[in-house]
């Protein structure tokens, strides 16, 4: 057990600067309008630093820098870019504890997760895309004996990226790594809830990348995100967030005739077939943990398994064991490595979660566990903590249909395979799902029948670089976390070459 010292205290791994600027053209640049906003730590509800409040003017400066850098960067060799990505990975790894503690302080998630998931995955993600770009080949086709079509991958140029607050560094890296590997220059806007750790990362890796290749403008969606997403000076926009903003971004992209990739969340079913309870063994224990995964990252995950579907014959016994298991999830100081559930990311997030607990009760869902805000007292008294909460109800309730983005689980039963799949697919979304069975045939069929981009079979919440991630239905467009993401940041150039002296004969 380790309890990390809070940032700012003498023995802490982290010292925040009082103020963070925008990162443009390889240097810190003050916002044109000179305004700043406070970044609040959800751990104690207190400000941790001031951050530049960027506007359209700052986005233009960043786009200027990106356009200056893009041509040369786009012509570097894949070898050189892979080398840079690997160096970035090394720096992240060398600063693991510092970045993990900072991420926990800014986002509220338990430090056991930032130490073992967020930051190591970020490093590995850069390495994966270093390998992917090194090993990517163009392709050609022989049209006939004297004509060949060559296909080259070319970077798009300057791209825009808008990052969410639930995994501030990792979600940025999911977008940065493929874009950089493919040779694009980037203007990135972090979430206004969690801008600082990305800026700490760029402080560490700033001299590895040529100036202007990566530019970061902080600020609010309406003031900085919108001018970026709607700019005619980007060749692609990538966004992770919710449906209304996703649609708005598609509208801006339509106006500029550019591609957009969107990851818009979900309401992921976690389906437990009756045979999981055939034995009380290590696998049953794994299934029980799989149920409690709704509390991972305090439930603030787009793929949170927030609907548990349990087959009728084992419903009471499996659910009973799972509630006992969930009670053992330790809620507490996010900087304590024993803590499993930390702080929700912001006050409004906490308020929204509580409003869902309220509507759940009104709709007649039965509260089985939790349901209350928690005051941890002492230094953490102002933080945003909610008990892991379990409701039993029906899939048509709003509790089962909306992404609460908190540690709130909606549980129901199903009667046989077809009923289970039907409930699992009765949702607007299709991002993630879990399937648990000892029977490989059932697990396979269920995995294929559930309409979601990622179905975890006999596991949940693993995010290894290389496994494609993205949504069906209203959960978005495009894939990340796999070499497929390169194509979202590349043009295809076709050289159609004639090796013949003979004219076509038309004129």
């Amino acid at each position, binding site marked *: 057990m380790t309890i990390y010292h809070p940032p700012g205290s003498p023995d802490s791994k982290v010292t925040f600067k009082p103020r963070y600027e925008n990162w443009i053209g390889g240097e810190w640049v003050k916002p044109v309008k000179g305004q700043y906003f406070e970044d609040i730590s959800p751990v104690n509800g207190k400000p941790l630093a001031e951050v530049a409040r960027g506007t359209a003017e700052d986005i233009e400066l960043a786009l200027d820098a990106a356009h200056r850098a893009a041509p040369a960067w786009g012509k570097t060799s894949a070898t050189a870019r892979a080398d840079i990505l690997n160096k970035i990975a090394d720096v992240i790894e060398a600063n693991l504890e510092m970045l993990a503690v900072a991420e926990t302080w800014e986002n509220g998630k338990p430090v056991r997760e930032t130490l073992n998931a967020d930051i190591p995955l970020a490093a590995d993600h850069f390495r994966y895309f270093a390998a992917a770009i090194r090993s990517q080949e163009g392709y050609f086709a022989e049209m006939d004996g004297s004509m060949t079509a060559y296909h080259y991958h070319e970077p798009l140029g300057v791209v825009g990226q808008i990052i969410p607050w639930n995994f501030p560094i990792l979600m940025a890296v999911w977008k940065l790594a493929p874009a950089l590997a493919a040779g694009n220059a980037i203007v990135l806007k972090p*979430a206004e809830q969690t801008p600082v750790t990305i800026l700490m990362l760029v402080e560490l890796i700033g001299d590895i990348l040529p100036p202007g290749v990566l530019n970061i403008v902080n600020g609010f969606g309406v003031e900085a995100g919108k001018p970026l997403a709607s700019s005619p000076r980007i060749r692609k926009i990538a966004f992770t*967030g919710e*449906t209304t903003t996703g649609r708005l971004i598609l509208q801006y992209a339509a106006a500029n005739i550019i591609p957009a990739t969107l990851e818009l*969340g979900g309401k992921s079913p976690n389906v437990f077939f009756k045979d999981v309870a055939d034995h009380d063994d290590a696998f049953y224990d794994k299934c029980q943990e799989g149920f409690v995964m709704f509390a991972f990252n305090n439930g603030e995950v787009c793929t949170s398994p927030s609907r548990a579907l349990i087959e009728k014959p084992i419903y009471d016994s499996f659910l009973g064991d799972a509630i006992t298991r969930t009670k053992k999830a330790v809620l507490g100081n996010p900087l304590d490595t024993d803590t499993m559930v930390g702080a929700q990311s912001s006050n409004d997030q906490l308020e929204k979660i509580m409003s869902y607990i309220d509507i759940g009760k009104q709709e007649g869902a039965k509260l089985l566990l939790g349901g209350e805000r928690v005051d941890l007292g002492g230094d953490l008294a102002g933080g945003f903590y909610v008990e892991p909460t379990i409701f039993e109800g029906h899939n048509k309730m709003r509790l089962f249909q909306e992404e609460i*983005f908190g540690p709130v689980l909606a549980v129901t039963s199903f009667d046989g395979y077809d009923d289970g799949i039907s409930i699992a697919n009765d949702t607007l979304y299709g991002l993630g799902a879990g399937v648990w069975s000892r029977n490989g045939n059932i697990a396979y069929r269920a995995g294929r029948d559930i309409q979601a981009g990622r179905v975890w079979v006999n596991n949940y919440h693993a995010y290894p670089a290389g496994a494609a991630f993205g949504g069906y239905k209203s959960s978005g467009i495009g894939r990340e976390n796999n070499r497929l993401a390169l194509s979202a940041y590349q043009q295809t150039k076709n050289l159609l070459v004639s090796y013949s002296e003979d004219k076509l004969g038309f004129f």
Partner: protein
Amino acid sequence: MSVIDNVVASVTVPGETIPRVEFLPVTVELLRTLWDQYGPLMFHQSGGCCDGSSPMCFPEGDFRTSDQDVLLGRLDIAPAGGAPQVLDFWMSSEQFEYWSHTFLTVDVVKGRGSGFSVEAPEGVRFMIRSRLMDGFGPQL
């Protein structure tokens, strides 16, 4: 200072007779300030992750609605005797199928960020509180 009342929406869903949306006084007050800054405004209710499930407030027309959206109501935030200041409140049709049994109250809470919604820089955000509507229940 004049006391502001709740503003209840007009009924705009075809075939219905009772309103579906209301603004609290604190919401009306904030919206009047934002109206002065941005001009006419609209709401579109979001779903999905991060800032999802929140009512997003945009300059009117900035978000293009379509046949895939339902107009839940129109709300006039103008002070008594003033020129009308009417906001449309929209939701996607597919989302409405799952929300139709609930009455929505738009509140304001302290917070940070909400997509491209215009209130975020004020350090607050709009939030939905829900109650069951008379005569409606989840479509079992």
